[in-house]
């Protein structure tokens, strides 16, 4: 008798297990929980608040207004869990662990910046989550992707942007518009140094005359010294591989000092709406990283929606890729018909996606088709480099006078 009841019990348990498994596979949740921890406070808050957070909000609102993400036969709305990582690596790591283990979110959206993306990458990797590291830029991109097989990049590498501007200078020299005197300054921080090192090597290789080269510590506000030193060398191109605070300071002080070389380039932050608001018509002709194809209807439409919904214009470098990465996620989930991470990642790797950047693929888990150089023309930060790509505008040379 005891053995019979034991056998029955086992049979019962077996039946339950057998029944529950297929049920689990089909059984979708009521909503897709998406979590993110971005820097609302601390030194990264400016970047995150311009590029990341408005796009997350815009996307969630638009998707939910449309009924949600289609998974198989059903439309699932998005539910958001959001934290502040306070610009700290340790907080970011713990917040992502909290999102995965406590809040049990189905997908995690990335934080802002290279440092925090790299901090959370091992956590996402261990838990098997896809990681769309939109605002991470590293020259060791390949190395990192080999390490974490579900990591995706969208903004290429630092060297890639340096190549963009140097190639542009070469073209201008060939067409005889400049002779080749270049002054460059850079912020002594990761991205600034990588950009400057790559640019310096490429300029030397192309035999440009680098008349001035100087780095300055992050957070410097007094730029008069380096601007004056650069001006004494009478450069045709002034390249500042700067971060947003110094991009503003350099532009402001160049204007005050009346330093107006034919080519004036500042790096990160040039494409921010803040830059345009601050300098108004004086932005005309300034070069920088990023840019948009203003003839693209989806892009114009995106800028309008972004401005309307969030009350501010997008950053014209990384905002659109951020929004596009969310569209990629959504389309990958819809095509996979599942929220299973492996299936979604497989779709991301192999699919072609219809985004605000146009049709894109993530071949080799990275998007390489972003614009390298942009220029403010008629109040729009238009893409001008690479110049041979469709949608590139003609460069305006020389830069108009400061007003």
């Amino acid at each position, binding site marked *: 008798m005891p053995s019979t009841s034991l056998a029955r019990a086992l049979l019962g348990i077996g039946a339950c297990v057998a029944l529950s498994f297929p049920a689990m596979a089909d059984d979708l949740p009521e909503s897709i929980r998406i979590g993110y921890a971005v820097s609302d406070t601390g030194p990264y808050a400016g970047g995150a608040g311009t590029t990341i957070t408005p796009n997350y909000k815009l996307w969630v609102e638009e998707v939910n207004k449309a009924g949600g993400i289609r998974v198989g036969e059903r439309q699932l709305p998005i539910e958001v869990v959001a934290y*502040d990582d306070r610009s700290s690596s*340790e907080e970011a790591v713990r917040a992502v662990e909290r999102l995965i*283990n406590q809040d049990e979110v189905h997908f995690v959206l990335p934080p802002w910046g290279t440092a925090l993306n790299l901090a959370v990458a*091992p956590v996402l990797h*261990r838990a098997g989550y896809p990681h769309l590291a939109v605002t991470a830029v590293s020259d060791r991109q390949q190395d990192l992707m080999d390490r974490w097989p579900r990591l995706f990049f969208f903004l290429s590498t630092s060297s890639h942007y340096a190549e963009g501007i140097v190639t542009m200078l070469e073209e201008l020299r060939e067409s005889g518009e400049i002779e080749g005197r270049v002054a460059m300054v850079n912020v*002594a921080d990761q991205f600034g*140094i990588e950009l400057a090192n790559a640019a310096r090597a490429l300029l030397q290789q192309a035999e440009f005359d680098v008349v001035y080269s100087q*780095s300055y*510590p*992050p957070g410097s506000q007094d730029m008069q010294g380096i601007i004056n030193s650069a001006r004494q060398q009478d450069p045709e191109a002034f390249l500042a591989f700067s971060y947003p605070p110094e991009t503003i300071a350099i532009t402001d002080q160049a204007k005050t000092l009346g330093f107006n070389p034919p080519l004036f380039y500042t790096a990160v932050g040039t494409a921010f709406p803040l830059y345009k608001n601050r300098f108004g018509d004086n932005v005309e002709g300034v070069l920088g990283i990023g840019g948009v194809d203003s003839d693209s209807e989806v892009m114009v439409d995106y800028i309008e929606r972004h401005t309307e919904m969030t009350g501010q214009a997008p950053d014209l470098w990384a905002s659109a890729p951020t929004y596009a990465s969310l569209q990629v996620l959504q389309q990958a989930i819809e095509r996979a018909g599942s929220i299973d991470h492996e299936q979604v990642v497989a779709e991301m790797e192999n699919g072609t996606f219809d985004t605000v950047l146009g049709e894109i693929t993530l071949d080799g888990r990275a998007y390489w088709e972003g614009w390298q150089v942009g220029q403010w023309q008629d109040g729009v930060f238009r893409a001008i480099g690479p110049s041979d790509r469709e949608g590139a505008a003609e460069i305006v040379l020389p830069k108009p006078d400061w007003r």
Partner: protein
Amino acid sequence: MMALSRTTLFGGVLLLAGVIGFALLPGFVGGYGLSMAINFLMFAILATAWAMFSGPSGYVSLATVAFFGIGAYTVAVLGERLPWGAVLLLAAAIAFLVALLVGLSTLRLRGVYFVIFSFGLAELIRQVVNWYESTQAGSVGRYVFLDITQEQIVWQLTAVLALLFIVGWLIERSRVGFALRMIGDDETVALHCGVNITLIKVLVFSLSAAFMALVGAIVAPRWTYLDPSIAFNPNISFQVLIMALLGGARRLYGPLLGVIPMVLLFEYLSTHFPHLFSVLLGVTFLAIVYLVPHGVAGLIEGYVQRYRKRFPGKRAESDIPKEGAL
């Protein structure tokens, strides 16, 4: 002596229980629990090490993150080249030496001058690292690719915390501890009693620095990417200070009493009020300074003393030997 060894025994049992608890923890909690444990252990070591020097001596240091960062950078630079044990030892040794050098030249400063100096020290080291990385190493960020699991981090931090308690206990009951308390009460008197005040201060300061560096070294692999502003984030110094003050810096176990509620509070605030975190934190700090000026340990002792006054009979057996430990 009976009662002293009884408190010691009690402390020893608690320590052992704590070590066993944390050693077994990874079997019971998930990634998030471990993450909380790491956070707790990290601040427990930093605050206890801070109080080991600053508590008895009264020298308020804001240089915690300087040594923490030195530990983290040691791992970033040497982590992939040397065996892990050697890296940890080296991290502690470098911090010890830096603290020794710095201490010899600056622990003659007193009061607010020392506070400002110690804050400046952390900034100075950060700028030096920044300068070196940007001009000599050619890149400011460093990657730390070490396959160290969360469990291993918890175990290592537990071991360091246990070691710190043993060292702290030994110092407290030794002549060094006595001399340090004397310095804290009146430096001039201590000097006249023949205490070599500089040696004592520098020694304990360096020892506490070595422990702080160990924490930085052990935690660094968790972040994958390090740059000077991550490794030398001044917030760490302030958080450690407030935790130690909340707990009470004059007792070895004091900081722990501050770390537990603060870590839980930080977590509660960042989970439930992520966007008001800084504001609420500031309010909490103000509340602590006004309401618990002597820390939780001071609060407890106050209650104990009042209890004893009311029941003087109990006094004889437990209090007299305790004087020796004060």
